[in-house]
C-alpha cells in the first residue's frame, strides 16, 4: 500500500447541472506513468484541476503520500511536491528562460521578505545555487543556449520544454501533464515521449491527461479511460486497445 503515491477516492464535481466528474477513483503507484484518456468533455481536465487544487470537489477525497490534500490551496499542494503543466503553456513571458526555471526552485528555497529587502548575504548563496541548478536542468534538456532569452520570444515547442524544465526544477514526486503533446508534430511528440521516460527514471511519477493515443500507448504503464465523468475502463495500454467499450466511445464503432 505504501507503494501508492496518489489515491483518488470517489471524486465528484458538478458544474451547475453537469456532473463533470462522477465518482472517479484512481490509484497511482510510485514510479509509474499513468495516463488518463477520454473524448472531449469527458472530465479529464476537471479531474486534473481537482488534484492540483485549482477547483474543489463536491464529494470525495484525494490522498497524496497518505495525506489528504482535498480542498488545499494550489500553492500548498505544489509545496507538497505535486508539479503541473498547463494545456496552454504558461510561462512568465517577460522573464528570461533561466528566471522561469528558477521560479521552479521557489518551493526549495527560503529567503523571505526581510532578507530580500536588505539583500542579506545568505540569500546570495541560495540564489546562486538556484541559478546553477536551473542552468543544469536547461542543459539537460538542451536549452542552455536560450537561458538568457526572454521567454515570450521562444517558439511554441521550446516554451513547452521550458515549462517542463520549470516543473523539474521543483523536484516533484508527482508530475501532472495536461495534454503535453497538444500542438506538437510527430517528431516533437517522439522527443516528448523520450523526455517523459527520462523524467520517470529520475523517480518522478507522471500522470498524463492526453488526447494523443500514440504518446499514451507507447509510454504509459497504466491507462484509465473517462467518459462523461465516469471511469469506464482501466488497464495496460494493450488491454485498453482491445477493450470494446473504449473502442465504441472513442471510435464510434457500434460493434467492435
Amino acid at each position, binding site marked *: 500500500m505504501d507503494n501508492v503515491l496518489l489515491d483518488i477516492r470517489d471524486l465528484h464535481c458538478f458544474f451547475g447541472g453537469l456532473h463533470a466528474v462522477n465518482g472517479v477513483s484512481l490509484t497511482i503507484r510510485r514510479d509509474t506513468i499513468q495516463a488518463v484518456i477520454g473524448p472531449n468533455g469527458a472530465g479529464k481536465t476537471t479531474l486534473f484541476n481537482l488534484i492540483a487544487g485549482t477547483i474543489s470537489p463536491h464529494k470525495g477525497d484525494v490522498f497524496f503520500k497518505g495525506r489528504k490534500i482535498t480542498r488545499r*490551496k*494550489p500553492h500548498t499542494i505544489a509545496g507538497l511536491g505535486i508539479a503541473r503543466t498547463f494545456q496552454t503553456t504558461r510561462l*512568465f513571458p517577460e522573464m528570461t528562460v533561466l528566471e522561469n526555471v528558477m521560479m521552479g526552485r521557489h518551493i526549495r528555497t527560503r529567503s523571505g*521578505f526581510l532578507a530580500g529587502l536588505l539583500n542579506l548575504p545568505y540569500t546570495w548563496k541560495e540564489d546562486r545555487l538556484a541559478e546553477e541548478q536551473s542552468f543544469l536542468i536547461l542543459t539537460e534538456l538542451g536549452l542552455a543556449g536560450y537561458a538568457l532569452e526572454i521567454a515570450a520570444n521562444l517558439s511554441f515547442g521550446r516554451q513547452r520544454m521550458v515549462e517542463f524544465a520549470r516543473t523539474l526544477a521543483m523536484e516533484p514526486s508527482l508530475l501532472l501533464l495536461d495534454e503535453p503533446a497538444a500542438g506538437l508534430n510527430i517528431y516533437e511528440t517522439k522527443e516528448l515521449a523520450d523526455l517523459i521516460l527520462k523524467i520517470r527514471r529520475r523517480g518522478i511519477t507522471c500522470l498524463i491527461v492526453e488526447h494523443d493515443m500514440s504518446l499514451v500507448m507507447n509510454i504509459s504503464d497504466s491507462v484509465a479511460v473517462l467518459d462523461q465523468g465516469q471511469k469506464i475502463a482501466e488497464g495496460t495500454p494493450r488491454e485498453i486497445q482491445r477493450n470494446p467499450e473504449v473502442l465504441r466511445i472513442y471510435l464510434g464503432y457500434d460493434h467492435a
Partner: protein
Amino acid sequence: MRRFGRYIPVLLAGVLVVGLQIVLSATDTTYYMTQITMSAYYSLVVIGLCVLMGYGGQVSLGHAGFFAIGGYTCAALTTCNLFAYREVPLIDWLVAMGLAAERQDLYGAWILSFTPWPAFIVSLGLTVLIAFVIGLPVIRLRGHYLAMATLGFGLIVYRVVLGARIFGQADGLSNVPPMKLLNLLEVNGRAAFRVQNYYIAWGAILAVMILSINLIQSRVGRALRSIHQNEEAAQSLGVNTYRYKLFIFVLSALFAAIGGALMTYYNGSIGPSEVNVMKSVRYVAIVAVGGMANLWGALLMGILLNFLSLRGVFGTYDDAVFGAILILIMLFSPQGLLRKPDVAKLRSFFRLGKSDG
C-alpha cells in the same frame, strides 16, 4: 560584482544630487531646494506605488490615504495638548521617558504633547496595521475592482480628515514641531535648514530605492513578478500569491506613510488637500509616465512633475494636467511611457544606424 553592480545607479544618483546642490548654492538659487525636498517626499509614495503596480501588478487609488495617515498621525500626536491629563501617572512616565514634552506653540502658549520621534514610529506602525486590515479583504480583488476598493478607502480617509476635530477638519493641522535626527540634523522647513533637508530627503529616497531594488532582484521579487505575469502558473509553482500581494501592498503603504510623516515635519503642517483623491490619481499617473515597472523612471518623473506642480507651472490646471497625462498614457502607451523594452529598442535602433553608417 553582480551583488553590488545594482547599486551603481544609486551611486550615480547620489553624485547628481550633490552636483545639483553645488549648482543651486553657487547660483544662489537654493530656494528651489524647498520644492525639490517636497517633491522627494511625494516621490516616496511614487516609488512604493511603482513597486506595487509595476512589479506586484496591483493598482491602488488610495495611496494618498496612506500618505495622510502617516502625516496626520504625526501632526495630531505632536500638536495635541495633554496638559489636562497632567495628573495621570502615564503622562508623567511619558515625559520622563522623553516620549512627551512641554513646548511653546507658535503663539507662545505652552502645550504638552508627544515628541516627534515616538509620533513618527506610531504613525508608521498605525499605517502598517491599517494597510494590513484593508489589504486582507481587498487584495483578493483584481484590476478595476481593486482600483475601486482602494479608491473607496481613499475617500473614507478624506472624509474622516475633513470631519474629525482632532485632524483640524478643513484647516488641517499646523504648528507641527520639527524632528531632530541624531542631534545633528533636523527635518525642518526653515530657510536655514534648506541644504541639510535637501540631503535628508534624498537620503530617504535613496534608502527606499536601495530597499526596492534589493527586493525586486530577490527571490521574493521574482515571485512578485511571476504573479504579475501569470498568477495561476505562480500558484502552481508553490507561490502563496495572496501573502505576497498583501506584503507588497503593506510595504508600499509604509513607504507612502514615511513620505507623509517626513513631509509633515518638514512643512510643519498638513492639510486635507494631501488626502484628496486627485492626489492618488496623480501618483498613479506619475508611475504610469515613469514606465510602470521602472523604478528610476518613476523617481525621475516623481521629482520632475511634482517639482513643476509645486512651482506652479501648471497654474490652476494642476489636477487637470495629471488627469490628462493619465488619459494620454492609457490611450497611447498603457504599459507606461519610460519602458525598458522601448529603451532597448531605441538603443538597438541607434546601434543599427551606426553600423549602417
